[in-house]
């Protein structure tokens, strides 16, 4: 489902990273491994359609991502790719449920309130639906951000260092959540990490 070919990116400071070709099939789970500064985040941003590479192509479902006009690209990302960042990045002025709805609204998809509640339930934070981000713990926030990434039933779930700021218990929970939710939603999963605690859950690795 995802194909990257002859991809390379030049940083502003002049550094150049060349990425090996990569093919991800439907519903596959991959780890993106590499030391910090090796370009993990850059590659994830490129796959997510957030950063235009200097060279090469990214295909998602036969769509050449970087040939789409800006508006279509935003829509495409909203509908097909769910992203979990290192930090939860929730909208502070909206409660948990509204944060989930926001994902649907921004992608121009009808709001499916039942699905959203089911997601929160699966992630064990249904009772926090009406709470604001400031009232939640780090672990809970990260769960909400996982739920938000899954709101539009994406084909690809991307997580960038999702466990780096979490303790062992939460890290294990979040990783398990990501894998089970990706499976349950029929999405391919890519986790970028250098966290050994994640490695035992996923076998396929792409090394940078």
């Amino acid at each position, binding site marked *: 489902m995802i194909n990257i070919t002859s991809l390379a990116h030049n940083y502003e400071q002049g550094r150049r990273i060349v990425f090996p070709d990569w093919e991800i099939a439907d519903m596959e789970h991959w780890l993106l491994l590499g030391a910090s500064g090796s370009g993990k985040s850059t590659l994830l941003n490129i796959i997510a359609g957030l950063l235009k590479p200097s060279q090469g192509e990214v295909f998602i479902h036969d769509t050449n991502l970087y040939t789409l006009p800006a508006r279509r690209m*935003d829509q495409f990302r909203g509908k097909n790719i769910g992203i979990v*960042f*290192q930090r939860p*990045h*929730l909208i*502070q*002025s*909206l409660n948990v449920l*509204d944060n989930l709805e*926001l994902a649907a609204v921004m992608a121009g998809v009808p709001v499916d309130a039942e699905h959203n509640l089911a997601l929160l339930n699966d992630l064990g934070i249904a009772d926090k639906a009406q709470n604001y981000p400031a009232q939640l713990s780090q672990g809970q926030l990260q769960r909400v951000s996982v739920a938000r990434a899954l709101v539009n039933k994406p084909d690809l779930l991307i997580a960038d260092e999702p466990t780096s700021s979490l303790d062992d218990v939460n890290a294990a929970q979040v990783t398990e959540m990501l894998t089970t939710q990706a499976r349950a939603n029929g999405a391919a999963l890519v986790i970028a990490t250098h966290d050994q605690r994640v490695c035992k859950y996923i076998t396929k690795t792409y090394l940078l």
Partner: protein
Amino acid sequence: MNIFKISSQNLYRNKLTTLLNIILVAFGVGILTILFLAANQIGNKLEKNAKDIDLVVGAKGSPLQLIMSSIYHIDFPTGNIPAADAYRLMKNPMVKRAVPLALGDNYNGYRIVGTDTTFTGLYGLSLQSGNFWKKDLEVTIGNTVALTAKLHIGDTFFGAHGLTGNSDIHKQHAYVVKGILKPQGNITDNLILTNIGSVYKMHEAPEEAHEHSATESKEINNKQITSILIQYRSPMSVIVFPRMVNQSTNMQAASPAMESARLFSLIGVGVNTLKWFAVLIMGIAALSIFISLYNAMKERKYDLAVMRCLGASKFKLFLLVLLDGLLVTAIGTCLGLLIGHAALELIGAFQESSQARLSGMLIVPQELYLIATGFFTGVLASVIPALQIYKVDIAETLTKGH
């Protein structure tokens, strides 16, 4: 969930800043509302009450005072003129209609105007109930007078000397209400109309009272009146007639149009100062909204990057930030209009002279300009912060985190 909700939630999160900005906008709009409303009503009143009156002739003194006292019934009369001279002038061929006025008394602040039937013709008065005055001491009262003084047909009351206050009451004669006018929407709503003879009667020494029961023309010959309202036969008289009055008689002629214009130019300075003050406040409001939005962008950058990430287009987020500014100015503008109307109503309620009372219950077309100004202020203040959207690098913002 739509961008309206996102925007309002964001504003609610920054309550104090939002409140300050709303107050600034409301204050600016409020002042402008009061100015527009007051100017409009005063202008309207001046115009309506002086509609068919080309000239006022009265005793020498301030022409503005003569106009104010004889047409608007606000100021004190300049003095009296001999009725014989006035009568001669009223018969002048250039005059189409002349209305004699005898002022000087009031009832509860409502002026008692001694005049004749030409007055009803001049103002086009019609009765709601009862009759016009016919004999001495009969009065026909304006609608507002009837309502606020609770006078009904057949009621009697004593007039008081002077234009306000009840200190010097003419106890020897009581007026009797014979008729009530329909609401006219002009000064006559606030007047008590009677014949000139009644006014004379009030001011005679009590022992002389019985001696004078002669005809009206005889009374006029011996007496004095306050002023005459004159309507010309032809517009040509505008130049000749006032000069004739001013040079060849002991009276003065004042043109309502000219004096109103002069009055406006006098209060115009104050109105202009206030107007610029309000514009300045609106400017400060715009600046304050701009600064708060611009500062908030540092923090909101992450929110906006997340929304981009979730599939929102740059334009949608541009609108979102614009909406923040617009919501503040929209609420501020509505509040300002309300405050303006309420304040004017309050001012009106505390005004002493019922003749010039201002009302906050009217809406003037200029308020549309105010709404447009509010909208424009919102756009002006938020367009630069909103344009920042186009510069945010989502990938970098989200990867680097807070």
